[in-house]
């Protein structure tokens, strides 16, 4: 992993954090609320988590088994949060 790529990942993670924060601060005014906000927040955190797993943890070039375990964790946790959110809407 070269430094330029690590810096790019860092910048993307910071921008994604800004997006998460903005949804919390001005999401309502932008019409991003409720299930749409939930979906966007989970998507952003998945994208961020995936970058940390692949590029910071260095699993990009490793057998799928290991990447699958960590990215699978992200997907499972996101799915459980989404299901709980959906139940809360009822």
């Amino acid at each position, binding site marked *: 992993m*070269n430094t330029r790529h690590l810096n790019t990942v860092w910048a993307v993670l910071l921008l994604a954090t800004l997006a998460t*924060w903005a949804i919390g601060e001005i999401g309502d005014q932008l019409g991003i609320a409720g299930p749409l906000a939930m979906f966007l927040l989970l998507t952003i*955190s998945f994208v961020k988590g995936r970058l*940390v*797993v692949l590029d910071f943890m*260095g699993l990009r*070039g490793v057998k799928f088994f290991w990447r699958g375990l960590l990215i699978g964790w992200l997907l499972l946790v996101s799915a459980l949060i989404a299901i709980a*959110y959906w139940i809360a809407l009822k």
Partner: protein
Amino acid sequence: MGQIKASRRHPGDTPGMDAAPAPSHPGHGPAAAPPGDLAIWFFILAELLAFGVFFAAYAFARAHDVELFDSMQQTLDRQAGALNTVLLISGSACVARAVEAVGRSRSATGARWLLAGIACGGGFLVVKGFEYADKFGAGINLSTNTFYMFYLSLTFFHFMHVILGMVILVALWVKTRQGAYGPADMNGIESGAAYWHMVDLVWIVLFPLVYVMR
């Protein structure tokens, strides 16, 4: 674990290589094992499992009392949570740069990046400390309500992991300064770095879930 490590690529093997997800060992397919010691990965998986159960418990508890959770969430300091996300992401990036530098035999540079990572972790603890002081000062504790029971226990569980991660980073910094790691011996620094990234990974889910989602 040595035989597994032997098939691994080190960051310095292909200087200037592009970011493409290339096979880590050309001709041999992807590396069999992740960076660092295999044992740390089992530890990381156990930690992720624990946090995963905690996150699910929070989400389903919220489903039972949405009004309480949504109103209590408004009493949290979202700016502090966002700042702490920036600090942990930056700390993680610094440690990734440290591993990259050590992989190119640049221990002094690696040590400086580790120190920057430690500073980010310290910043996280300070910001979280102010948040806790604010809440405790307002008389909030574990028995205030279900939301705060989860908020305090979940974030404090994570807080303890940041402290452990910083202890590991300090140990790595001391050894890196002594030149203990290099392209031929990345095991220790990669293992410690993986743990630190796990602490970041968990917060990446925790922040939107607890501070933002409503």
